[in-house]
């Protein structure tokens, strides 16, 4: 049986019970100040990242809005 996953930015990402947005950010070392989070196309406010958990098969987008050069 396949390990449960979520989709993170169009790629499979390991799922575990209680996985929060903040935990994903820490694991991925995402610390840029302008980041947008969406789960199944629903926007998640920054103040909710610590308490929002994801479910298996969720489609999670963590988007850096970065102007660059």
């Amino acid at each position, binding site marked *: 049986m396949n390990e449960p996953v979520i989709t993170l930015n169009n790629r499979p990402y390991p799922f575990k019970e209680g996985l929060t947005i903040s935990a994903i950010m820490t694991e991925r070392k995402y610390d840029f100040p302008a980041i*947008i989070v969406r789960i199944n196309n629903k926007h998640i406010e920054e103040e909710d990242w610590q308490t929002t958990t994801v479910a298996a098969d969720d489609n999670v987008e963590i988007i850096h809005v970065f*102007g660059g050069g």
Partner: protein
Amino acid sequence: MSDNCSHKISKDDITRMKAAHKRLATYSFEPTTIERGYNNRSLYISIGGSFDASNQDKLTASVSGENCTVIGEKAVTPHMKDKFVGGKGFGLYHLWKAISEGTRWNSPENDIVISPGPLAGITQYPGAGKSLVCAISPLTGIPVDSNVGGFFGPFLKFAGFDALELQGKSDEEIIIFIDGNEHTVTIDTAPLEAVDSHILAEQLSEMYASTHEDKENISVISCGRASENSYIGCLNFSFWDKRRDCVRLKQAGRGGIGTVFRHKKIKAVVIRYRGLHGDLNNPSKKGLINAAGVRLHKEMAHLDTSQNNMRKIGTANIIEVMDRYDLLPTHNFQFGAHPETPKISSKVFIEKYVTQNLPDGCWYGCSMSCAKAADGFELRTGPYKGHKVCVDGPEYENAAGLGSNVGCFDPHWILEANFYCDTYGVDTISMATMTAFAEECYQRGLYNLNDTEGLDMRWGNGYTLNELMHQMVTGDGFGVIVGKGIRQQKRIFAERFGKVSPEYEHMLGGYVWNDIKEPVIDMPIPTSHFNKNLENCEFLQSTGYDDNKILGEIKGTILENAGANNDSAYIAKPTKPEKIEGIPTITREEIADWPVGKPYYSDDPDCSYTNSRPWVKMTPEQVAEMEEFGMENKGLEYSEYLMKESLAQQGGYALCNKGPQHDEAWLIFMDMVNNQIPTFEDKAEALHYFPMFRTWFGLLGLCKLPWNDVTPVNNKYEKEPAKIPEHVQNYFDIYEGVLGKRHTEVSMVRQSERVYTFQRIFILRMGSGQRKHDTPPSRSLGPITEGEYLSREERYDAQMKDIIGIDPCGKSTAEKVKIIMDYRWSQFKQLVDAVYKRRGWTPNGIPKLEKLIEIEMDLPELVAVIRPYLKEEGYWPQGEEYKKYE
């Protein structure tokens, strides 16, 4: 500020300089009123020389002066405005008509065109003071466009012109002066003024202002001395900083336009305009502009500190961000991060160098205020050693290029190089990338200390970085070769810096070829910074690499170290050798057939540094090696972002019309980090929309930074947040506010597509612009050395297994490098196919006739260029409706 006081100008000096002027021409023009952003005329100045001007638009009024000078006007027609809009569009339009297929950068007919665009000069919305400059580039041989702030562009428009053309070549040093209030243009000889920009701009601000306060009404275009012996000259556009009480300089950096400017013997173009106010564009709907401006000013006031800190440190805010995301180019784009980056972080520049709490806008009304500067900066080298100066910067590109990419992690040396680049008039980006290439060639043993005459080309020597520029000024030394750019470096190294084969050693007559003791070649980076498993790596140890030693040095060095821990640019300074009898002298044409390894003499009038020494050709393998890591495309050096892990950005660079500059597309985060554009079609769409949107800034006279270097609060709810839709709407509002016409994404893209496609066909006309010319160096696509692979071994192994489907276990590092690079080249090929298709081009990169018809650019002169290519490739369309294009 009193700290910037080492070059103040006396009244006597100014009187003496003015007395030496000789008037060549005077032109009086009628004042105009700007109508919705346009004057409907441009200013044409020819400064002498012989060339065919029969294809150009006719002058509507003109005078002829001494030395074959001409000053006149050309009409800006509805056709020009409809098809080319302004800015870069007008630049390319005039350039196309001024030159022929045989024109080279140093031909007198090469035309420098400066145009501010119809929205330029707005003071209510940030970032609306840009000019676009176009010319045939000495680096690429094709048209280049470069954008620049400073006051000149808006002043030119308010003086009465939508563009300025500078054509011809003067026999004497000249200054052109445009008086926007007296409505006159004059050309004077100017033998005594300085050339270096930080002094010349001060002299001319003093000379042409009637009072000290009047200096804020002056702007000067100039270019310093290093541009005269290099191909990377930039143009400095000045503005008077009344709080600092000195001139500031903004650069049209890319492509060597300053080299063209100095070749024409133009010392400066000066403009004066008094009476600035916010409605000079005669806008159609001022309320729309004001409302958009207020919205953005509020965002800057409330959001900048928590977002990008533009008002504190400008674009340099991203130095540490790039490092953290493995995107900061280090040691010639080998790696994307370095443990010493904290020494050159934005925090260091803020706390130690860059003056805070000044409204540093390069045009009025810009609340982004990102034109930062370091005041009272004391120089260590060169003709201005000991002077305290104002350094404009560092921009991110300067810190990344003149810092990490050349292996220098000392903020002082970065700022010193930044200063000399500006005042000597060379492009910081090309300077950095071409130095990094030369350093890597040295590290690889492709040339040695004899070839540099003792100049230490190891990574990160801050003295050397600046010495290279001082040599560009004197026209002698290894720096002259470096200043010709990577494409020429590769040629020169290949034909001159090979090793003498044993069979030909007798020809040297006892001359000791390698008599300077080589220093230990220092490795660039502790790879265990990335990969802890490499601390005792056999491969690295076999190269003499000592990770612990390097890490120890890094931890042990204080902030202001000296790059490679040297206190001089030189290891040794040998005397120049006498010519050796018996070594033949051959012509340039004979070099191609000369044997590898056999010494010879030849002559290079453009680069005399090596003329007195024997030349030796490199092996074909060495030549091929340099192609792999020489970070140029079309002849232009790459700008300072590591693109290896973003296929879209690899395309953004290689498919950029003028050469690899990121101002067409910066897609690294969308692609590499966010993975928002996973398919080839997604990437191709991004490589259509973003280049078109960014081209539009260059047509209108706008700065890119206020678009996405501050993000509105509600952007997070947008469907396509990367586009910053609220700000795009702001731009449509100010467009309507000035021109009175509604604008949409579709009409905006259409405007840009016309000019973008025109530029591609222009490049084709000049002998480039096919698929083969869009081919990047291998390093831009991935790890080309085992060291690069090992530094991110985990990443590349995972890619090999999960994406390519090959198990890396049991494979040597060399085998793995080949597998990854073969795969990446195949990906790049598919990307190019998709992008060309989206842009309406053939697989060879030629715009199709159907595309020209679609965007209403089926102009006969464009069709004439593409027709033979399309017919040869089988893409010439059949059908009755196309017969008229035969």
